[in-house]
């Protein structure tokens, strides 16, 4: 089974060490059922995170939940925004390409 790494004990997300479809095993023990497939290097929520609450990784807030997140959800651009970068949220969730620039 694919493993996921929770860097700090306070973190509410873990990083996948390979692609996974249904479930991941945490390096520190336990498993988390995935609500959707998640790719290598991306994050899974380890608990429910209310809209407006901090998303924590490395023991620090890496952003704020922009909508409610459920345990097992993929945590990324569609549900987590930077506290600094105002362009955060204006990017394609899969390719990361910016959607706020006009090409006409």
């Amino acid at each position, binding site marked *: 089974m694919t493993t996921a*790494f929770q*860097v700090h004990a306070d973190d509410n997300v873990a*990083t*996948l*060490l390979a692609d996974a479809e249904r479930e991941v095993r945490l390096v520190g023990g336990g498993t988390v059922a995935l609500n959707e497939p998640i*790719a*290598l*290097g*991306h*994050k899974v929520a380890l608990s429910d995170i209310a809209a407006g609450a901090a*998303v924590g*990784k*490395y023991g*620090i*807030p*890496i*952003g704020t939940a922009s909508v409610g997140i459920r345990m097992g959800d993929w*945590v*990324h*651009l569609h549900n*987590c*925004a*930077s*506290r*600094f*970068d*105002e*362009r*955060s949220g204006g*990017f*394609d969730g*899969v*390719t*990361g*390409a*910016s959607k706020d620039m006009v090409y006409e």
Partner: protein
Amino acid sequence: MNEVAARQWQAWLRPDGRKGVRNLVLVIYTVQCAAHVAHAIAAGEEDVQVIGFPGCYDNQYAIRLVLALARHPNVGAVLSVGLGCEYTQPARIAEAVAKSGRPADAFFIQDVGGTRSSTEKGKAIVRSLRERIRRETPRVAMGFADLTLGAECGGSDGTSGLVGNPVVGRLFDQVVDAGGSAICEEIVEMIGLKDIILARAADERARAELEATYDKAERYCREVRQYSVSPGNFAGGLTTIEEKSMGAFAKSGSRPIQGVIKVGESPPWPGMWVMDSVPDPHFMQFGYTNPNDTEGIMDLISGGSQIVLFITGRGSVIGSPVAPLIKVTGNSRTYARMQEDMDFDAGRVLAGELSLDEAAGELAAMVADVAAGTQSKPEALGHREYFVMYKHQDTPELDRGCRSAA
């Protein structure tokens, strides 16, 4: 004594006492109009490399950066080539380089003739300079205590903060413990980590330098509406600049940060240093702080880094002039796909094949091999990308004096 502290290799001794791991002739053009001739001069010439400044109007920051590269420990001699109309003066560059004890020459293309005659003249000069520095430069023993290492991230992904950067951080700790220096420049990739950075300061002076530099970087990113995070980072699983920052900062290791140096400034004493590459306030705005990876690598080399480590998750195909670039990835898929460009696969740590410390030891051995003359992959592939841009930084206090590492 561990392996890192013990390794020695043969280096070239420069007049200022610093030691180089290469013995290069650097061709420097002073305006884009001279770029073709400069590259034609260096084409096919062993140990001759090119950098240049594209603008016709001169810029104090760019001149400081170019001179720091021209007087880098890996550079033995310089030829500066201009067109003849531009503000930046090739003869002044050669004069400053000659004062450092290195042979140097300069000419304007308009004084010599056209493309072919200038190329022929330039080739004759660089061959003579190369012959001279090969004959005259003293060879001396060098070890990690004499080394300044730079580290830059590019194309980070979710693996970079877990293994790619932490492996480099452990190597940095070993280099610092051996009496050497290490430099990170990406202050714009420390956004969100103010308290964590300040907690690493060696003393109150260093803390004040870091705080001022951090505040300036955060303000600058907010004003230009651009943070140092890219579509490739997002696709690789990084969601915000804060997340990327934590991963990027891991490459600084764990030793106390001695303070902040500016572009073109070498660490005044050994240890771990942060380089400030963000523009200082000025009546002109100079755009984004580090428009691409090459710009940051040039900054690190201007700080005297004899070798630069480049940590990438997504993959990259750049190199650098003056100082060899060693490419490290924490993503084994990227390593497999881009093996011709990637030097080191730190993803083996994620697969459980070796520990972070073992990986740092292997990387240290690779650094020593490259310092001893083995070409890194970007070097062997002929990558020599450079980027010198208009920017403004207040003139650094270049003579802070020395202090013992203790």
